């Protein structure tokens, strides 16, 4: 049994400790918002927060998350209204949408560490999240909008 805290809930899962966290979230905990993209940490579709860091759950074995806090897209905000989610809606960022839970989770870490990022900061932080629809300019715009939402709510 592995003990985890996922989206503020203490849980125990009966899985091989070598199982990727992604499959524990999707197949055992019924949290399918986190996507499988490449399986080798190259695309960013599977990003979740582990102790506040934007880890790639496809290569993160569940044993690394034991007794630690995991946040998925489902738990980022209670009503799906995290400033990044609000901005994503306002700018209408996604096209096919497949990569965007990973994009949003990465953007949330950026804004937590740098509340007022420049275009360059955004490019550095988001360089590991691939979007095959090419929504990069809207992603950048939405992160600036999220920074503004953050400012106005504090």
């Amino acid at each position, binding site marked *: 049994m592995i003990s985890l805290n996922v989206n503020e809930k203490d849980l125990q899962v009966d899985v091989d400790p070598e199982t990727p966290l992604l499959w524990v979230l999707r197949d055992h905990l019924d949290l399918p918002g986190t996507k499988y993209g490449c399986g080798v940490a190259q695309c960013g579709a599977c990003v979740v927060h582990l102790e506040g860091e934007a*880890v790639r759950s496809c290569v993160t074995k569940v044993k690394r998350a034991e007794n630690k806090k995991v946040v998925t897209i489902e738990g980022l905000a209670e009503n799906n209204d995290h400033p990044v989610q609000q901005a994503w809606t306002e700018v209408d960022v996604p096209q096919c949408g497949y990569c965007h839970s990973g994009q949003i989770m*990465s953007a949330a870490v950026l804004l937590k560490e740098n509340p007022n990022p420049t275009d360059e900061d955004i490019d550095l932080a988001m360089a*590991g999240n691939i979007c095959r629809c090419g929504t990069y300019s809207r992603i950048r715009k939405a992160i600036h909008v999220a920074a503004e939402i953050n400012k106005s709510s504090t």
Partner: protein
Amino acid sequence: MNPFKPKNQGKILSTVGGVFLILLVVGISVGMSEKNFSTEDYIELSSLKKDSVVSKEAFKKVYSVLMHPRCMNCHPSGDIPLQGDDSHLHGMSPQRGEDGKGVYAMKCANCHQNENTPGIHAPPGNPEWHLPPADMKMIFQGRTANELAKQLIDKSKNGNKSIKDLIAHAEDTLVKAGWHPAEGLSLPPMSHKEFKEAWVTWLKTGAYAPDNSE
């Protein structure tokens, strides 16, 4: 009390001794300042057998390992690590960051786990995975053997490591990770044991830098 002993003989002798000691220390400091050695390093080295021929030969082996992609890829000349046996710029352009552990959502440990991830092109792993920090970049890429040898023993460029620290560094977990590459990546040109022997020999025989013509 000895009536034949001058009154201040003890003081005079200790003063002379003290001055001699100061001169010795100053002499050592001046002599070694060029290479940024401390007096402690000098004493450590002076008790060793200096041999420039043996030392330079040992460094040639050390250099062949340090310039191998398993070592050099994390000692780049820029702020993006290198990748693969052809040492190309790391895909996704992760940045060094202040502490050498990346920035924002692009930190090394977000992909690099405590151990290698199985599969070709999957991330290699180690609990300490990182680049040298921004204020001590320890660049290997592009350095000649002469430049790298001098840099390695220069405390202002090696993380303030003494010769003793450098010897111990051969057993560093991240240094040794070079001999546990991820799938599809080549090993350094000699075993860790042979590398360590050459490293220690180089340091203990005087840490001489090969000439640029060598």
